[in-house]
C-alpha cells in the first residue's frame, strides 16, 4: 500500500544498523586478536548446548565452569569470565563451527572450553586449532577424536584435549563388567542411530562377541518414546540390556516397559543415562566418566560453594569435569601469562604448558595430568554404579 516503499527503506536501514551492531562483536586485526591482555578480563567461552534437548547438560556445565572461574581466579591472579556459546544439538554439529568463529575473532579469548559434543569437536576443531586456541572438552567422548594408538585421528589438532576417557574405554569397561560381574550370557544392545550410542554400542558389542556372549543388536530412532514394540524383541532369557541413551527418561520408560512385559533383563546405561532424578530403576547399572564426587576427599568445600551459587540445581555428572577443564585451562593461561611477563603475545603459546599441568586433589579424585602420548588423561577410568532401592547410585567397581 502507500507506505510500502517507506516500510522497505526503514526496514533495510534497521537491518543495516543491526548488522553493524553485530560487527561490534570483536573487530581487530589478526595480530591484535591473538594477543591476550592478562590483567584484563579473560574470556573462556563454553561451547555447549544451552537450549534444546541437550540444554540441561550444557547449563550444568556452565554453572560449574562459572564456579571454577570464580573460586580459582583469585589464587591464580586471573580475572576470568565464562561466556556461553549455545550449540543446540538440533542445529547439528556444524553450528559449533559458526559459534566458534565468534570467539576466534575476540581478542580477550585465551582458550575455549568444549565443544561439548563430539560432533561439535569434529566440526570446529580445525578452525580453533588454526587460531591457536586451546580447547578442552569435558564431555566429548567419541573414540575417533582420540590421538595416539587407540583412536583414528580424524580431527587433526594438537589443540584439542579432553579430561575424560573416550568411548573406546567406556564400551569395553561396561562389556567386561557385564561378563565378569553380572555373568551375562545373553545381552541385548540398543543404539539410537546417532554417533554417541552407535559408537558405544559397537565398542561393547565387539568385546562381548569376543568373549562368546550372545548379542542381539536393536536399533531405533532417537525420537522414539514408546518402546513397547522394541521391548517385544528382547528375548525372554536375556540377562542384560545395554541402553546407551542420552535421555535418561527414555531409559526409565524402557525399563518400566520391560517389567510390564515380564522380561527379567537388567538395564545398563552409559554416561548419558546418568541422572538419578530421571533414571532410578532399582537394580539397574550406569557407567560414568566421573565418580560420585561427593564421596571424594576435599570436595565438600567445592560442592558447598557451588551449591550456594546454584541452590536449585542438583549434582550431576557433567559439571565436575567442566570444573576440572576450566581449572586446567586457567592454570595453563596463568603460566603463559607469567612466562610472558604479564601478557600473552600469542594465545597459541598457552598450548605449550598443557602437558605440564598437574592438578593434585582434583575434583574427580586423585591427581590429574594428561597422558604423554595422547590428548586424554593418563589412565582414564570409567566408573560403574548400581541403582539402589531408594534410587541412589552406588559405586561398584
Amino acid at each position, binding site marked *: 500500500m502507500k507506505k510500502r516503499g517507506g516500510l522497505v527503506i526503514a526496514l533495510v536501514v534497521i537491518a543495516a544498523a543491526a548488522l553493524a551492531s553485530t560487527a561490534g562483536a570483536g573487530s581487530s586485526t589478526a595480530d591484535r586478536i591473538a594477543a591476550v591482555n592478562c590483567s584484563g578480563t579473560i574470556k573462556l567461552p563454553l561451547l555447549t548446548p544451552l*537450549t*534444546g*534437548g541437550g*540444554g*540441561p547438560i550444557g547449563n550444568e556445565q556452565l554453572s560449574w565452569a562459572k564456579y571454577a572461574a570464580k573460586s580459582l581466579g583469585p589464587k591464580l591472579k586471573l580475572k576470568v569470565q565464562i561466556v556461553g556459546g549455545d550449540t543446540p544439538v*538440533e542445529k547439528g554439529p556444524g553450528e559449533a563451527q559458526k559459534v566458534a568463529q565468534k570467539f576466534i575473532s575476540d581478542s580477550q579469548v585465551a582458550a575455549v572450553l568444549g565443544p561439548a559434543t563430539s560432533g561439535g569437536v569434529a566440526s570446529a576443531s580445525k578452525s580453533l586449532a588454526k587460531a591457536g586456541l586451546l580447547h578442552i572438552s569435558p564431555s566429548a567422548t567419541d573414540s575417533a577424536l582420540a590421538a595416539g594408538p587407540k583412536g583414528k585421528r580424524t580431527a587433526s589438532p594438537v589443540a584439542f584435549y579432553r579430561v575424560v576417557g573416550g568411548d573406546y574405554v567406556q564400551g569395553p569397561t561396561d562389556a567386561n563388567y557385564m561378563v565378569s560381574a*553380572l*555373568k*551375562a*550370557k*545373553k545381552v541385548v544392545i540398543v543404539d539410537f*542411530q546417532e554417533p554417541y550410542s552407535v559408537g558405544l554400542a559397537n565398542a561393547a558389542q565387539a568385546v562381548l562377541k569376543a568373549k562368546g556372549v550372545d548379542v542381539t543388536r*536393536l*536399533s*531405533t*530412532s532417537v*525420537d*522414539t*518414546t*514408546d*518402546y*513397547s*514394540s*522394541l521391548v*517385544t*524383541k528382547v528375548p*525372554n*532369557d536375556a*540377562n*542384560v540390556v545395554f541402553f546407551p541413551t542420552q*535421555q535418561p*527418561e*527414555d531409559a*526409565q*520408560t524402557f525399563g*518400566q516397559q520391560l*517389567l*510390564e*512385559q*515380564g522380561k*527379567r*533383563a*537388567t538395564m545398563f546405561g552409559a554416561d548419558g543415562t546418568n541422572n538419578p532424578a*530421571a533414571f532410578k530403576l*532399582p*537394580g*539397574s547399572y550406569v557407567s560414568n566418566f566421573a565418580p560420585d564426587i561427593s564421596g571424594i576427599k576435599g570436595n565438600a568445600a567445592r560442592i558447598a560453594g557451588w551449591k550456594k551459587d546454584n541452590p536449585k540445581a542438583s549434582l550431576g555428572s557433567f559439571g565436575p569435569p567442566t570444573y576440572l577443564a576450566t581449572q586446567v585451562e586457567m592454570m595453563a593461561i596463568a603460566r603463559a601469562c607469567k612466562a610472558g611477563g604479564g601478557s600473552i603475545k600469542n594465545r597459541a603459546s598457552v598450548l605449550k604448558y598443557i602437558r605440564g599441568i598437574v592438578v593434585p586433589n582434583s575434583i574427580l579424585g586423585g591427581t590429574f595430568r594428561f597422558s604423554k602420548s595422547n590428548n586424554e588423561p593418563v589412565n582414564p577410568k570409567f566408573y560403574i554404579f548400581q541403582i539402589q532401592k531408594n534410587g541412589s547410585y552406588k559405586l561398584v567397581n
Partner: protein
Amino acid sequence: MAARPSAGPPPESIETRLAARVDTFIQLTLNGLTLGSVYALIALGYTLVYGILKLLNFAHGDVVTVGAFIGFGMLQLLGGSTDPVVPVWLLLLLISATAMAGCAALGVAIERFAYRPLRDAPRIAPLISALGVSFFLAYSLQLLFGSEQRDYDAFSMDNGALFFKGFSIGAVHIPLLRILVICAAFALMVVLWFLVNKTRTGKAMKATSFDREAAAMMGIDVDRVIVFAFVLGSALAGAAGVLSALRVPTYPSAGFITGLKGFTAAVIGGIGSIPGAMAGGLILGLAEAYTQGYISTKWSDLAVFVILILIMLFRPQGLFGRPDITKV
C-alpha cells in the same frame, strides 16, 4: 535385579516356540491398539477441522503436546504422582479434564486469530499460518518449560498399581494402564459420535462440511459451527496428550512427530470422515507395532511413510473418504 547365572538355554519344543509366537503377536497387537487409540483421537481432531474448513491444521500436533504439559502442571499442583492429595482415579480425571478444557480454549483462540481472518484467502495462506502457529507453540513450550522430557511417572502412582494390576492372556500381561488408555479413548470416540450425529450442532457441522454456503443460507451460524469443531477436536487432542504422556515421556518439540503420525492416520482413513479417522488411527498403530516387532525398528518409520505415499497416490481419498470433486 541381578542377572541369574544360567547354564544355557534348554532346547525348545515346537509348542513353546508356537506359544512364544502367539504371545509376541498378542503383545504387539496390544501395543498397536494402545498406540492406535491415541492416534485415532488425534486423527479425529484433524478430520473434524478438515471436514469443515478444508484446512490441514498443522498446529494440531502441538496442541496435543500442550495438553500433555497442562496435564503435567496439574499433576504437580495436585502433589505429584507418588503422593497425590486425591485418590488416583480422581487425579487422572482432573488432569484429563483440565487438559481438555485448556486445549479447547487454545483451539478456539487459534481458530479465531490465525485462521478466521484467512477464511477467504487463497488456500495456501491458512496452511502457512498453521505452520507458524505450530512453530510458535512448540518453542513457547520450550521457552517456558525447558526442553527436558517430562514424565508423568504413572509407574509410581498407587505403588505401581497401574502397571501390575490387570489381567493376562496366555503369558501376556495386560496392565491396567493400557486398559485405561484404550477404554478412555474409545469412550471419547463414542461421545464424539453421539455429539456429531445426535445433536443439532453436530448435524449442523455435517451440513457445513458438505457445503458451507448452502448451510449458511439455511440459517446455520457457520462461525459457531466452526468453533464447535475446533472445540471438539482440540479437547480430544488434550485427552490424547494426557493419555500418551501417561505411558511415555513428552517433550516440547514432540508436537511435530505427533502431528505427522496423527494426520497420517487421518489420511489413511480418509480425511474428512470420522469413522475413517478412527479406523486410520488403529491401522496406523497396528502397522507401526507390527513393522517394529517383526521387521526392523530401523526402517519402520520409513516403511510407514512409503505406505502413506502409495496410498496418497493410488487412493488419495483414503479408506472411507469420498473422492474430492471440484466444481468449476
